[in-house]
């Protein structure tokens, strides 16, 4: 019987395994060194905040894997030998496979900062990072201040985590406004103000120069590039993006770029070896997407796609309309289609922006400047319906239609105040001005 080995038990690998099991009787083994069972990485923050225990982040009960004949192996793969189809594990064991899927996800970026490997310096990606954080930042007596380097989604989550334990946080953001490589100005500005309202010491346009150690090789302070200011701290969170976690493949014959290079069918250069999720890099980006998509949802979709291929129904990875979501402290964010920040905005994209007077809700709708075609929406503090926008994008509706029917897309809980008429008024007024 064919033996499919998946390295990595994150959302990509586990989705793949579940779907292979639905479609076939193949022997499936998942190897992971991080944890014994699958858990939701995006939920790690809630464990530290005390909203959940680790077991709550596991979407399947522990009996699930045996019942579905998915073998789990907790081990670290140190080398892949594709000629003999053999994996060498760090503990000396060998595992043979017929098909190999690499789904090892990411690891936090480190940009060669002095002191980046000191005790108390950590990313926030793996379960081990969380355990590390519990050691160095259990409370605000042990950790009197934490400095976070890198203004992305993980950075702001780490800031929320630390402040849930009343630990003062300094947040160094390279950009002139939070996440403005992705978010349009109005939204990014609103999130800046929201971060400040949570008493985070937000430093925009600020880079890290070095991390200083005390005599125990532990973090003592950080130094700011621009001003030379030294900020005493006990923990440094490095959250300046992630990189595919593929160092163990360097000795193999598998083609690597920043990630494992794959074609549209998620195949690598070696027959029978595939890569999915955060660690896969498309030779050519699909549409507006990045060649490496380090997103929960795309990992899942790649798993669903590859399961078909491995079970005899070869399919290309062909994702639908882009969507994503996040939460910035108390403000939820959803996006459907493409809305660009100032930096990457194509010439044809025009934007309509509305912000509520309370400064905790706003939307930006992108549309084509010539055809008025609706291109995408960012929504903050107002939940919107995925299905509706997915349909409007497929139907290529124009912005006038979307504005008139915006209420249909509302997904807020019942009895919530509605803002569609306010939004529509602004839109109409703006049209008259132009």
């Amino acid at each position, binding site marked *: 019987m064919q033996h499919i080995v998946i390295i990595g038990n994150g*959302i990509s690998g586990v989705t793949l395994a579940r*779907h292979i099991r*639905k*479609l076939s009787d193949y022997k499936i083994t998942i190897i992971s060194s991080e944890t014994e069972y699958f858990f*939701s990485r*995006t*939920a790690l923050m*809630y464990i530290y*905040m*005390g*909203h*959940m225990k680790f077991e*709550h*982040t*596991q*979407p399947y*009960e522990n009996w699930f894997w045996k019942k579905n004949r998915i073998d789990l192996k907790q081990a670290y793969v140190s080398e892949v030998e594709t000629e003999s189809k053999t994996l060498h594990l760090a503990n000396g064991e060998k595992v043979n496979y017929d098909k190999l899927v690499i789904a090892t996800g990411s690891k936090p970026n480190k940009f060669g900062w002095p002191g980046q490997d000191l005790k108390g310096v950590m990313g926030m990606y793996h379960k081990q990072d969380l355990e590390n954080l*519990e050691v160095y930042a*259990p*409370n*605000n007596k*042990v950790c009197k201040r934490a400095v976070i380097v890198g203004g992305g989604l993980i950075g702001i989550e780490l800031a929320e985590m630390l402040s*849930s*334990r*009343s630990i003062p946080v300094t947040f160094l953001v390279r950009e002139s406004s939070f996440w403005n490589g992705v978010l349009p100005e109005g939204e990014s500005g609103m999130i800046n103000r929201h971060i400040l309202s*949570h008493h985070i010491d937000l430093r925009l346009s600020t880079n890290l120069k070095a991390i200083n150690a005390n005599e125990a090789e532990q973090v003592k302070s950080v130094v700011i590039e621009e001003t030379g200011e030294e900020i005493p701290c006990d923990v440094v969170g490095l959250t300046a993006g992630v990189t595919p976690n593929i160092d163990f493949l360097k000795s193999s014959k598998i083609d690597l770029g920043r990630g494992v290079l794959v074609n549209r069918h998620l195949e690598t250069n070696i027959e029978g070896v595939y890569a999915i999720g955060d660690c896969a890099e498309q030779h050519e980006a699909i549409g507006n997407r990045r060649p490496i998509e380090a997103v*929960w*949802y795309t990992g*899942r*979709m790649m798993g*669903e*796609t590859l399961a*078909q291929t491995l079970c005899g*129904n070869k*399919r290309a*990875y*062909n*994702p*639908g*309309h*882009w*969507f994503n*979501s*996040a*939460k910035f*402290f*108390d403000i939820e964010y*959803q996006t459907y289609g493409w809305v660009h920040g100032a930096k990457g905005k194509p010439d044809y994209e025009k934007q309509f922006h509305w912000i509520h007077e309370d400064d905790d809700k706003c939307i930006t709708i992108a549309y084509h400047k010539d055809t008025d075609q609706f291109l995408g929406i960012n929504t903050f503090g107002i*939940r*919107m*319906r*995925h*299905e509706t926008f*997915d349909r409007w994008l497929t139907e290529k509706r124009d912005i006038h239609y979307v504005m008139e029917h915006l209420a249909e897309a509302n*997904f807020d*809980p*019942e*009895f*919530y*105040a509605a803002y569609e008429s306010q939004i529509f008024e602004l839109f109409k007024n703006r049209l008259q001005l132009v």
Partner: protein
Amino acid sequence: MSLAKPDALQITNTQKVAILAGVVGLFIMTLALFNIDFPQKGFFLGLSMGLIGIGTIVYSRAAYLNKLEGIKNDGTWFKSISSRGIWGWIVGLILTGFYIVLYFFPQYLGLAADGGSNTGLISLFDPLSLLLSGRPASQWFVYGTLYTLAILAFGYKFMLKYRHNRYQQLRTISVMFFQLAFAFLIPEFMYVMNNDLPYYDMKSVWPLNYYIFDEWSVKGFISAGNIGLALLIFGILSIFVFTPILTYKYGKRWYCSWVCGCGGLAETVGDPFRQLSSKKLSAWRFERWMIHLVLVFSVVMTTAMVYSYLGYSHNDFWLTRGVFISLVIGFLTLVFIGVLYFKGRELGTDAKYGAIGFFVVIAALLIMHFTGTTDKLFYIKSGTLRSAYGLYIGSIFSGVIGTGFYPILGSRAWCRFGCPMAAILGFQQRLFSKFRITTNGGQCISCGNCSTYCEMGIDVRAYAQKGENIVRSSCVGCGICSAVCPRGVLKLENDTMKGRINPNEILLGNDVDLMKLVNDK
């Protein structure tokens, strides 16, 4: 995992003072319990209840008002009381002890022996009872007062906790209102108007209100004249007319998390414990058997009770034993055939269990009818069945376990495993209602907040991560899953019946053809 205990839970000095006030309030009641005879009972009762109420209010304001609006679950699993720690067990034991004394040893609370006057804790409540209805307090009056106070004080706390969420606020105002007006005040006023009337909380519907059709209760209603008769008819209409219509339109939440007193306590006082309900598959299996067994028990018990005080002859009253038993069997058969005809395929193997259950009940009723003598049913004394139900279900299950075990089993153990009313509403909600929780396309990140904070132990995430709507008989529609979701994935809705249940993996954002393939299998 952690070396030092996370210190997320420091409380402020204001909160310490507030806790002290509440403890002093409780201490006054404890002194009364140990027979300290307070002069000016009215003053001390007011002081005690006032301190408890104000303490809770001040504590809650200090806890939430200095923070921005949003989800306030920080430290829930670090706090001893809300994570089955030592304080959780202590509170559980105190509550359980209170219920045992309340149900089985009210004399220790100071209930008067025949002809005497109250002493102890109950006597402390005499002034309030005299004020409201002109009669001295009973253990049930004490219980009802404390219950109402608890729902009001902790309802306020809950509203502050969810002050960004209108659904939670309105729902909480609703349970606070129904407890104060319907469960507490109106029955007292009804007694003043007409003291023949039995205690009747008009929002408590049979079979949750299992004593409404008892002989003493029905006789009480009938002897109270037109008003009594009207109330009795209201009680019957409640279960056969109002309930099905409201459940069809809004799901069982209209009752369980907006009106019901048990639900009201669970949603307010029980809120800090909601995450303790078990989400295991085994718990769900147990739940399905348990709750339906209680329902069968309550139907048979009630039928037997009513049957026992009806006559044989048409000359006395048109509703004879024969007519009654035929009506019951006819009604059950109608429901059974209707469900099988319209929903049989949807139910699958569950239909088989339903059929077995149905025939057992019918057989039991027929055997009862043809073997029954005046005071024996099923060869068991008629009252025995009723008192067994009252003891094991009404007192031990709903009170001692249901509420006493809040800090251990979570806030809805009774609602989930035992309430026959919930079983009926849930049965309808699953099969014939517009209510569902809609999943927002592909946005779920499987984080688990929804499942963790589901007080009914529903594994909400299992549906959400597949893009499936949640249509579960046990869902009480509290809306917390939707509130705690960090990605805006869940929405409670009343919409058309069509397409309500979508047992497919409908994850948007993917290759459309691929999703068709996934669902073909």
